[in-house]
C-alpha cells in the first residue's frame, strides 16, 4: 500500500463518519453511555475508598501511660511511639483532658460522675496506624515499650473495618468489571449491527479487487475517530455529572465532614482510560466484526450472510 492510498483511505475514514452519520451518532452514543457508566462507577469507588480511609484514621489505639511515670518518661514514650513503623499519627492526651472528654461524652448524664473524689483516668497517647492490616503487630510493638500501662485497642472494630474496606473494594471492582463486560457486549453488538448494514458496500469493494486491508483501513479510522470522540465526550459528561452530584450532595450531607475527591485528581488517568477504551472499542470492534464480511464467497443479499 503506497502513501497515496494510505492518505486516501484515512480521508475516507473521516468521510464515512459523516456519510454514515446515523450510525456514527448511534455508535458514539452507545460507546459514550458505557464509558460514562464506568466513569461514574470509578468515581464512586474512589470516593468510597477515601471515606473508608477517613474512618480508618479514626481507628485509634489508646496507650495508657503508667501512673508512676515521670513527665520526662512520658515524653520519651511519645517519641518512641512516633518512631515505630506503621504509625500514622500520635497525640498526647493528659489525664485532665481525658476527664473533660469523658464528661462531655456522657452529655447530660455527666452529673453521675460528679460524686467521684479523684480523676481515675491516666495520661494517654492516641495512636493511629497507617495500615490496618498490620494492626496487631503494631499493638504488640507498643506493648513492649516502657511505661506503657495498658494498650486499649479495638481489635474487633479494626477487623470489621478491614473487612468492610475489602468488601467495598471487592464490590466496586466487581461492579466496574461487570460494567466493562456489559460494555464490551453492548459495543460489540452495536458494531456488529452497523457492519451488517454495510455488508453490501463491503462485498462490492471486494468484487472490484480491494484487499482486506484496503477495506478495513477506513473502517478502522472511522472506529478510531468515533472512539476518540466518545472518550472525550464521556469525560465531559462524567465531569458534569460528578460536579453536579458533589454540589447537591454537599448541601444534602449536613453533619458529615465529607470531602469528595476532586475530579482533577483522576482526570488524566480517566482521560487516558477513556481514550484507550474508546479507540480499542472502535478500532478492534470494526476490525473483528468486519471479518466475516471479508470472507471470500459471500453475496450481498445472501440470506446465509445473516448467519453468525
Amino acid at each position, binding site marked *: 500500500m503506497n502513501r497515496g492510498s494510505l492518505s486516501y483511505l484515512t480521508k475516507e475514514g473521516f468521510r464515512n463518519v459523516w456519510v454514515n452519520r446515523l450510525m456514527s451518532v448511534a455508535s458514539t452514543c452507545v460507546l459514550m453511555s458505557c464509558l460514562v457508566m464506568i466513569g461514574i462507577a470509578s468515581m464512586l469507588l474512589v470516593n468510597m475508598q477515601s471515606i473508608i480511609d477517613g474512618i480508618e484514621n479514626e481507628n485509634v489505639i489508646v496507650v495508657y501511660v503508667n501512673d508512676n511515670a515521670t513527665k520526662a518518661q512520658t515524653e520519651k514514650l511519645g517519641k518512641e511511639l512516633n518512631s515505630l513503623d506503621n504509625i500514622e499519627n500520635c497525640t498526647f492526651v493528659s489525664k485532665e483532658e481525658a476527664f473533660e472528654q469523658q464528661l462531655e461524652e456522657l452529655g447530660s448524664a455527666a452529673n453521675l460522675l460528679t460524686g467521684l473524689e479523684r480523676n481515675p483516668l491516666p495520661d494517654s497517647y492516641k495512636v493511629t496506624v497507617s495500615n490496618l492490616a498490620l494492626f496487631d503487630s503494631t499493638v504488640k510493638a507498643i506493648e513492649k515499650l516502657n511505661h506503657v500501662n495498658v494498650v486499649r485497642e479495638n481489635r474487633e472494630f479494626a477487623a470489621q473495618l478491614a473487612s468492610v474496606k475489602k468488601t467495598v473494594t471487592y464490590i466496586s471492582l466487581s461492579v466496574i468489571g461487570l460494567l466493562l463486560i456489559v460494555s464490551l457486549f453492548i459495543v460489540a453488538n452495536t458494531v456488529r449491527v452497523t457492519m451488517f448494514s454495510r455488508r*453490501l458496500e463491503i462485498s462490492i469493494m471486494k*468484487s*472490484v479487487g480491494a484487499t482486506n486491508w484496503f477495506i478495513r483501513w477506513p473502517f478502522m479510522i472511522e472506529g478510531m475517530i468515533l472512539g476518540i470522540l466518545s472518550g472525550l465526550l464521556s469525560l465531559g459528561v462524567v465531569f458534569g455529572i460528578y460536579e453536579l452530584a458533589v454540589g447537591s450532595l454537599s448541601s444534602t450531607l449536613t453533619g458529615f465532614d465529607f470531602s469528595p475527591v476532586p475530579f482533577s485528581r483522576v482526570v488524566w488517568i480517566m482521560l487516558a482510560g477513556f481514550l484507550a477504551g474508546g479507540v480499542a472499542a472502535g478500532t478492534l470492534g470494526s476490525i473483528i466484526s468486519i471479518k466475516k464480511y471479508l470472507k*471470500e464467497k459471500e453475496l450481498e443479499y445472501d440470506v446465509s450472510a445473516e448467519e453468525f
Partner: protein
Amino acid sequence: MIEFNNVSKTFTNGTHALKNVNIKINQGDFVFVVGASGAGKSTFLKLMMREEVPSSGSIMINNYKLCELENKEIPYFRRTLGVVFQDFRLIPNMTVYDNIAFAMRVIGAREKKIRKRVPYVISLVGLAAKARSYPSELSGGEQQRVALARALANNAELIIADEPTGNVDPQMSYEIVDLLTRLNDAGTTVVMVTHEHNLVRRFNRRVIILEHGCVVYDGESLNTKNVRSSQGHIRHDIMPPKGDNANIYSAALNPKEKKEGFKLHETATVTLEGAGDAE
C-alpha cells in the same frame, strides 16, 4: 487465457447451474455468451471472477489457477479483470466519480492519474453531467453505464460484462458493443453476456450458447451457416411466428428436447379465468 475444464457448479440448494463446461478463450478473443434466462450465464461469469467456486472441474484465467488461489491472492487476481455486473454493484454512498475512482484506487493508482482518467471514462459513457450524482439519483441505464465505465477504468486485459446493455436503448447498446470491439481490437479479451441477438449477429463474433447449464453451441458467429442447419435455423427477427415455439435456440439445436420453463402460452386462457376469480 481462459480455460474451463469439466466445470460443474451445483448450488447449495441443489440447482445445477453449470454442467461439465469445457471452454477455451484465447487472449484477444471477443465472445458473446447467450442463452435463456437461468441458463447459467451469470454463473459462468461469476466462476470466472472467482465469486463462486466450481463444484468440480478446474478453471485457469490470466495464468491464475482459480481452484488453487489463496484468499489473499484473490484481490490481486480480480484486479486483472474489468467487470460489469448484471446488478451494477455501485457503492450507494459514493458518487459516480468516487465509484469509478475507487476501482482505480484499489489497484494503487496515483491521484493525478485518477483525476485524469475518471472524467475521461465518465465522458466516454456520456455521463459527464452526472459525475457528482449518487447511484440512487441515476436512471437504470445511467447506473449501468457507470458500471461499464468502472470496468473500463483500469484497462484490464480481460473485460467481463454481464448484460451491459440491458437497460439502455438500442442505439446506445450498439455504441457500447462497438466500444468493446474497439478495445478488443487493441488486444483486450472481452466476454459479454447479452440477450440482444441483433447485436450478436451484427458484430459477428464468437458465440457461446448455454442451455440449462450446458454449452450447446460454441462457434464463430450466430449465422445460419454455422448452426447445424439441418435442425433448424436462427431467425434474424427476434420474434417467433408462433408462441408455442418455446425456445428458439433449443428448437434450433435440439428440437427433441422439451423445455421446462415459461409456460405463458399453455396457460393463456387460464390466466384470465384465474384473474377473474381473484377479483
